[in-house]
């Protein structure tokens, strides 16, 4: 197995684990937030977990789009530069 295949395998696993973690964090966050524990800090932790899960899901969803956008902008910039001006003596 060459190194690129290894990295691609890692990427696939990272994507799958991220989706599962998003679901898990989302559920745990709501469970903590909705639990009948009258401690404000615990509720804030639940809220934070939900927010993080949503951000994670957002980044998984738009990640490939942003990479494509970077590719598009960079390919526009990769055109060859014009020749520099040569100073002419009078």
């Amino acid at each position, binding site marked *: 197995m060459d190194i*690129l295949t290894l990295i691609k395998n890692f*990427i696939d696993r*990272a994507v799958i684990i991220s989706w599962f973690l998003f679901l898990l*964090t989302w559920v745990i966050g709501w469970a903590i937030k909705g639990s009948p524990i009258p401690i404000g800090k615990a509720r804030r932790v639940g809220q934070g977990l939900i927010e993080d899960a949503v951000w*994670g899901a957002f980044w998984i969803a738009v990640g490939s789009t942003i990479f494509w956008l970077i590719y598009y902008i960079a390919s526009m910039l990769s055109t060859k530069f014009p020749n520099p001006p040569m100073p002419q003596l009078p």
Partner: protein
Amino acid sequence: MSLGDFLELAYYLSILTFYLGVLIYALPIPITGLKRWGPRLISDAFFVASLTFGFYAILNAANYIAQVLGSDWVRYFGFLNAQLTAQLSMIFGLSALTKFVPPKFAPIISKLISSLVGKLMWAVYATMFMYIIGFVIYKDYTLFASLGIALMAIPFRIARGAGAFLLAFSLVFFVALPLYPAFFSMIVVPPKPNVEIYEPYQQGVRHYEHSSPILDLAIPHPLRTMLRMQIPVSQPPNGFTKLLSTIARVVYAVLLASVLYLTLLLSISVGLARALGGFGRLRVL
């Protein structure tokens, strides 16, 4: 591995970094130090992806700057070749001198000449080093730059400093190393706008004179001569001392110029590497 392989590796590593960042973002562990790695890894991945896709734009920009500055690799290698030829011919000439010395003085003279040749060898080493580093950069600067980006793309900023330095090093040296002949001539022959060397008034004494246009116009010649500041410089007493001073000048000029120039370029490379986000420490928690 070739240039394309390194760029492909950097691209896939940046995607892996991105998804690792997302994974850390989505972890149900509310530890701030760990969670901070999420956005950090995501932004690193975008940065490295921009560098990877903009690789040819960066190379074109470097090439453009090099053209504007007037760097010329042919001139650079020609200059170093001429220097090497001069140094080696001096060494051969000095070595050949021992054959013409009477056998009575041969041990002393050969000792002296071997010491001079040893000094000259330092200049040869410095010139050879400049030649080799120039050759390596000229041949493979794109490979070094792509390897630098691939190193920067390793997740968790493990080799980010090394990668940023390699990228900055290859770009800076590609642009600025061919300007070495100009730097050398600037160091060895400094410009002297207001100082002129006049013919000696007396035998064996040379005067440096500071002349100013106002002084030259306003005051008649004999008085002007008296007013000029005179710095007597003793002339070399004989040819042998002249030879020694020439060799010393050759050795120290080459060593000083090469060390100064390489230090200057390395400092610029370190600065550029810092600007590219290098030398970040690995902080897990």
